[in-house]
């Protein structure tokens, strides 16, 4: 099992969600986060006084998936979330040791 963490631009969330649904992803966790990378922050100007915010809002998607689906998920997110500009985000893939469905107590791939 793999645990996939993707940091993407907020306006891309709906597209990514639909695309992942289409390839069979049944669930995900989404959070609004802040951070910075190469894109740095944005500048606000009030009557000429410039303030740079060095954190930008992003959306974090977390998906747990069976090994055979993980590659497809990463590929889909990469293609759908890309605008080919800096600030598009990153995808991290981790090995997932176990998963348990709380309602039934099932574990492993069947819990996903």
């Amino acid at each position, binding site marked *: 099992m793999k645990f996939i963490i993707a940091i993407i631009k907020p306006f891309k969330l709906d597209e990514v969600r639909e695309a992942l649904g289409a390839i069979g992803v049944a669930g995900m966790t989404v959070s609004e986060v802040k951070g910075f990378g190469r894109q740095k922050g944005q500048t*606000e*100007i*009030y*009557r*000429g*006084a410039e*303030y740079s915010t060095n954190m930008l809002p992003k959306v974090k998607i977390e998906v747990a998936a069976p090994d055979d689906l993980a590659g497809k998920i990463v590929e889909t997110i990469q293609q759908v979330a890309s605008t080919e500009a800096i600030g598009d985000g990153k995808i991290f893939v981790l090995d997932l040791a176990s998963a348990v469905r709380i309602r039934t107590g099932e574990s492993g791939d069947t819990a996903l």
Partner: protein
Amino acid sequence: MMNRKLMCGGGTIAASLFAALPAWAQEAVEAGTPIAAATTEAAAAVPNPGNNAWMMTSTLLVLLMILPGLALFYGGLTRSKNMLSTMTQIGGVTALAMLMWVMFGYGLAFGPEGNQFISWGKFFLAGVTPDSTAATFTDEVISEYIFIAFQMTFSAITVALVLGSVVERMKFSAVMAFTVIWLVIVYYPIAHMVWEARGVFFAMGALDFAGGTVVHINAGVSALVAAMILGKRRGYPLEPMPPHSLTLTMVGTGLLWVGWFGFNAGSALEANGSAALAMINTFVATAAGALFWMLAERLAGHKGSALGWCSGVIAGLVAVTPAAGNSGPFGAIILGAVASVICFFCVSKLKPALGYDDSLDAFGIHGVGGIVGAIGTAIVYAPSLGGPGGDDFVIGAQLVTQIFAVLATIALSVIGTAIAMFVAKALTGLRVAPEIEHDGLDIGEHGERAYN
């Protein structure tokens, strides 16, 4: 309103606002102005209810400019921890200025006895009754109580405007002490000199329809001096201090614009054609100011901003104040546009370069816009540019008069404000403690928070 002598054609209307008063009427007769004597007889006339109604409306519109207009405009520009203190300071000085006005302010500015620089008499409104009248600029009269109330709101908004440069760090007690001294040694004398028939600037024929010098240059320059004496906010300019609610600032801007029709068109003192001209000019100069500020932002490489629009509105309104009834609509548009661009430059480039902390740009917009408006009035008054000036109007000579009035006002504002600030400092300490400034004046000075 010192423009009237010119506007109404020569010295025929040397009509003092107080021609009704025997003492002044006597002087007028001795001075050989028969019309003024005739006005004395007309003073027995009953005020026209239409004029009275318009002046009552105008008076309330000026109050609307302050509360909640200016309170929201300034409040939105401060940080959220200082929202209440900003609005409460404006409310406090407004109430104080009203009480001072009926006790002795009116007497010092418009009293029956006096000279070129100050007047006296009618303290505690002695002798004023519902039947008392004040002269307008024609042979009409309005009820004196209305004139007193109208002028009262002007004194209140002027001192409230000054606060824009000192918010977020000045003690409430210091603000109140400053107000008492400043109104007495700066506002009342300047109002007398500009708006009362015996006043030195009035006599010179300087053009100021609704208070470009008395209100805006005076408040703006005083704000600059007060900010320099008070010192910068802690952390300025390194720490970010963005406005906490441009939404409220925009609401306040709208209320200021609406209220300004009472300020400008009401300064005609009658519901007549002069008021109508002031009204149309207060629309179009302001519209030009709003768009030209945003245009200046784009040319400077920024985005056209909401705060830019608001700032442009105020710059346009300030600039058209002395010109309201002294310009054609297209002269007013040019005046609003030019003032807006100059104010943009002063606020966004000049202020950072000079390093003073005029928190909400009371000087950058009211002071600078007022100066541009006062000087520009000499140009847009010309009939060749659509202004109401006579055929014999000479721009150059009027420019000299305008510039003299501006410089004299600046000098009085600087000296008077410095005195008022140092007295306030001796009485109250002037600034809040560093801890209170850090936590916000809302909780530190008033024991409340704006938002819970």
